[in-house]
């Protein structure tokens, strides 16, 4: 599984510029999807199975876009100014390396700060090695992602874009593992989540599911002097109760908990006082959809070194496969 993770996390693809990552995912799922289409905004939608009498149409959504930067200006000396795509913490940019969609690479520098000033994005710039506006190989509107190679520290896996490529891996592995199911499952690899769940909004409208689950990363409370949160790496996939923009349907939460219990899969409950996922977009589409979210605990989210636990990922695949293999009874 590490090879697949490495392949997917290292592909540049910030929100709105997902062509390369979409192509890579499509290649992976080609052989075990019954039907594949790409919608107007670029969501990759893959159907597996047909709805039986005791089955439902279920949408599983993992987003393939990542946070990144877009060029706003190239100055007279070839330094590149930018704006964030999605939530960018300036502190994670310092000394960072970027890879543009056109192949150019660069490093992020910063202006001199006064006193205890905290850096803001407008004090940063990218140096691609150009010396003038004319010889700069990037221009206004060019897009880059952060560049950092995947690395495995035993069971702890580190890369940029674990948010949310690790969930794309979970979806892909579930598609592979799902043998028998009464359900018609739409595995959606959504776009533009980081800028407001935009892909999931239109994908959910198009799929029109009976039930939906987002798969995404969530924060953890297990590093020094951090937020007080029960979620921790290695305690199993997390079943989201709420985040700042979404209240998981309690019937879906119960279904997920009961399935994890009966299958003997470790799990943890998650309450996140921040963030948002595709779950909200699915829940509020059309006339409403019972929706939840399966989360992978992740440290250092939205930095170039996001860390997850390989066992949590494997158990997430197990849980998702179990959830999709049997009739769904929501109570």
């Amino acid at each position, binding site marked *: 599984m590490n090879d697949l993770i490495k392949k997917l996390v290292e592909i540049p693809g910030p929100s709105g510029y997902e062509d390369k990552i979409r192509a890579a995912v499509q290649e992976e799922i080609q052989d075990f999807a019954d039907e594949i289409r790409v919608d107007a905004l670029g969501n990759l939608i893959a159907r597996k199975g047909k709805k039986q009498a005791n089955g439902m149409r279920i949408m599983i959504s993992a987003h393939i876009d990542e946070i990144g930067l877009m060029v706003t*200006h190239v100055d007279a000396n070839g330094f590149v100014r930018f704006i964030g795509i999605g939530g960018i913490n300036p502190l994670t940019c310092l000394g960072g390396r970027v890879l543009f969609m056109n192949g150019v690479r660069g490093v992020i520098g910063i202006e001199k700060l006064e006193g205890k000033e905290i850096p803001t994005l407008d004090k940063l710039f990218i140096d691609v090695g150009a010396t003038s506006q004319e010889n700069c190989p990037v221009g206004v509107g060019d897009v880059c992602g952060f560049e950092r190679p995947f690395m495995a520290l035993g069971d702890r896996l580190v890369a940029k874009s674990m948010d949310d490529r690790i969930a794309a891996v979970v979806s892909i592995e579930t598609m592979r593992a799902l043998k028998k199911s009464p359900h018609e499952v739409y595995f959606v690899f959504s776009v533009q989540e980081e800028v407001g769940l935009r892909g999931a909004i239109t994908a959910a409208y198009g799929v029109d599911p009976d039930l939906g689950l987002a798969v995404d990363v969530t924060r953890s409370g297990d590093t020094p002097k951090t937020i007080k949160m029960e979620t921790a790496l290695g305690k199993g996939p997390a079943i989201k109760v709420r985040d700042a923009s979404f209240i998981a349907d309690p019937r879906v939460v119960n279904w997920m908990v009961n399935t994890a219990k009966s299958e003997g899969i470790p799990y943890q409950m998650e309450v996140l006082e921040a963030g948002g996922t595709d779950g909200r977009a699915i829940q509020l589409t059309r006339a409403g959809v019972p929706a939840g979210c399966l989360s992978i605990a992740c440290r250092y989210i939205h930095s170039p070194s996001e860390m997850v636990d390989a066992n949590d990922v494997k158990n997430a695949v197990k849980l998702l496969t179990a959830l999709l293999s049997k009739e769904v009874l929501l109570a």
Partner: protein
Amino acid sequence: MAKDENNNMSIEITQEQIDLLERLCNAMAVSGDEQEVRQIVLDELKPLELDTKVDALGNVLVTRRGSDKNRVRVMIAAHMDEIGFMLVDDEEGGLFEFVAIGGIDERQLVGKSVIVGKDHLPGVIGAKPIHMTTPEERKTALKLDQMRIDMGLDIGKKVKPSDRATFATQFAQIGPSIRAKALDDRLGVVNLLTLIKHAPENIDLLAAFTTQEEVGLRGAGVAAYHFDPQIGIALDSTPANDLPAWDVDEENTRYNTKLDHGPAIYLMDAATIADRRLVDWLVSSAEAAHIPWQFRQPNLGGTDAGAIHKVREGVPSVSVSVPQRYIHTAAGLIRLEDWANTLRLLHTALGRLTPEILNR
């Protein structure tokens, strides 16, 4: 109208359009109360006898069908509403407490004249005389809740809390420029009317004169749901922050757009990441017709495209704006030539639109 290199009808700004823009800019249509502008739009459309309706949000929705086979269904939106105020409390003696509707810099209000209500009754936003202020006091901006609109001593019941108000600025053409209030987005409105009148045959032009853009893009979403288009284009106006920096050696790197550099094509704002295929289409159309153009710097802000592109199963969308200095203040300033080039770009680009543009 002459034909340009691409054999398209070239399009110009006529005195008639300038007069129409003047009427539109001088009209008052604060978000939620767009009636005055809606009426001008409906009057302009009447002789065309097109399929026209006014929906639950007050949007004017017009369908102008082309005649070619394989037409592209293009929705074009321009918002009728402007930023302004609502009177909220009557304090006797002609003084009214008010609130802002839409994004207004509070520091731009004091000492301005306003028009209030359907009859455009005159009022002023006053300030304490400088003689009575201390230098210390003058360092702090006046807060809006300390300001009042003064309607004079005998206004009686002619205005009341719930009436809308806006700046009293009158439209003026000054050499190469136009100075007026509400150029955001009456420029879009006048351009959209012109495009409808000169629509090419290769598209179905689904025109939406939208409401409530300034308070959350509310009209555009329902209009897009109704039209169910293949492509969405928002016409708006965007800041030109191209004034010189304080430090003459410092480069202004955050100008957003510049006057005299032509229509501004959006790449990304806070509400929309423009579909790159549509950006490329606009750029190549401009290049082919030798029309000056610029990118609007990726930045905050939003246009009706923000609502349009998320409707139903998604609508690839892009925005095009006329650069404007001093946007969202009592008086904005644009260049006639930028306005003309924006119209030319839209007209020529629409004429080159084919269904293949959405191929991946």
